[in-house]
């Protein structure tokens, strides 16, 4: 089996001129007792592009997200955000540094309205109140209205998240991440289960945000999405980074395809 080199071989990437590396992961390891969920993974996330994490179920994709965002403490290795180590930092501090994420199971604030779900994400400054007074408050409300308009949730602003349809919940998850000022978005299967119309809107949204400078790392199983949006693809299997490179290089690799489809 002739696999592309694992781990720290970022030389296979397709660098786009002028783009910096925002996040560096080096020799990351995550053990759950005897189970090695992530093994010696090293990769870079470069600004302004979409990196897609692919791999079979249980490959360690979400675990990698959890380690980057501080929800899991790596057994060993390093996570570096624009020169600062994120190791040992609580998730809320990492979020404030500019790394936002969605969850595969969405984790919406179910009993809050759609508007509140988005608004609360923007209210990070103070514990008891936000600075900036009325003008900042108005600006936040306007930003929420604009995001809800773009995500097709304008008419649902006053509806509780728990009362939304499935696709609407997915878009609320996107709306929440759009409300952050994060430079890096980690999206965990954001388009799974979307109908064709919603899928089109999702792609349009994502492309527009990337065009505005957002860096995206996305976990996705839908190969159509992978082909449509990826600038780079990282292939994980059983906790190991088997390949990290340009979409053509990864998608046309028969060995990886066999692993992905469970043929070996």
């Amino acid at each position, binding site marked *: 089996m002739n696999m592309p080199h694992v781990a720290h071989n970022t030389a296979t990437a397709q660098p786009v001129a002028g783009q910096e590396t925002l996040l560096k992961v080096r020799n990351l390891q995550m053990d759950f007792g005897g189970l090695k969920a992530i093994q010696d993974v090293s990769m870079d996330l470069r600004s302004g592009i979409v990196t897609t994490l692919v791999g079979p179920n249980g490959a360690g994709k979400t675990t990698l997200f959890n380690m980057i*965002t*501080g*929800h899991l403490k790596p057994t060993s290795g390093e996570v570096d955000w624009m020169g600062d180590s994120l190791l040992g930092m*609580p*998730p*809320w501090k990492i*979020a*404030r540094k500019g790394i*936002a*994420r969605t*969850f595969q199971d969405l*984790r*919406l*604030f*179910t*009993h*809050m*309205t759609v508007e*509140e*779900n988005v*608004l*609360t*994400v923007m*209210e*990070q400054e*103070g*514990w*008891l*109140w*936000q600075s900036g007074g009325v003008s900042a408050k108005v600006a936040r409300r306007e930003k929420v209205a604009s995001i809800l308009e773009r995500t097709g949730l304008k008419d649902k602003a*006053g*509806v*509780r998240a728990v*009362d939304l349809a499935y696709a609407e919940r997915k878009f609320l998850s996107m709306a*929440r991440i759009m409300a*952050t000022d994060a430079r890096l978005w980690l999206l965990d299967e954001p388009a799974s289960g979307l109908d064709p119309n919603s899928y089109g809107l999702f792609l349009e949204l994502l492309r527009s945000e990337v065009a505005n400078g957002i860096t995206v790392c996305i976990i996705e199983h839908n190969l159509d999405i992978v082909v449509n949006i990826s600038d780079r693809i990282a292939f994980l299997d059983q906790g190991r980074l088997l390949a990290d490179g340009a979409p053509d290089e990864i998608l046309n690799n028969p060995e990886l395809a066999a692993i992905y489809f469970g043929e070996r």
Partner: protein
Amino acid sequence: MTAYILNLLVLISIYAILSTTLNFIIGYAGIFSLAHAVFFGIGAYTSAFVAMNLTPSFFVAIPIAMAVAALTSLALALPALRVRGEYFVAASLGLQMLAVTLFSEWKGFTGGIGGVIGIPPVELFGFAVVKPWQFLVLTLACLGIVIVVIRRLVHTSFGRSLKSIRDSESAALASGKNITIIKTLSVVLSSALTALAGGLYAFYMAFINVESFMLATSVLVMAMVIIGGTGTILGPIVGATLLMLLPGALSYLSFLPQTEIGSIQQIIYGAAMVLLMIYRPGGIVSPKAGGGTA
């Protein structure tokens, strides 16, 4: 009869403050505390101590009681809220047991088992609040203030942060919220407002002892919140009213053995909570959209 009704209304108002403040942390922050009676007790004992040794002024005794309760709750909340919800329940239960021992044994402050007697009437602007109707007005005013404060809080960014933590701690963390600080603040605020109820209770009864601040009181207040409806403003008040009226209402049912009213009451509380959890888990007053303010 009028005196009986006035007495009942004062007690309902005091318990409504207790249930409203407990609902603030249960309904809006998802923090289940079994130590609410501790802060009720701290408020009562501190107010009584200040009234008997310094001044019975409402504006001195109550703020001191609130500050002491806030500081004590900080000692509980800071370590306990760093862990998952169920550990806080256990920690609060531990505090409740510890406090009962302290209330029973610290004779210099609490009077021990015998309690504190001869608490002078509370003074407002130099005017002693003695008559039951005057006290009812004061208690209702305090309940009103507590409701306004909590209603305002839950509609601020702080309230939204609390609700987001209640709904998903991990998503709140990923949204940049320091959930330990936010939850701690909510417990401190709730405890301080609970001490207000304690102070009112001490001044109204003129006598307090540990019996009023035991685990049974914490459970009763939690029942008021759950039966009335968590995450609503009206629910805890409805719950407090119903559960405070229940003993009196049962005594009117002549076919019930009057000596067993206490046990029947417990059976009714238990059955009501089980039935509500099955058929109306949100309580009698269900929340409106937004974790609201029904």
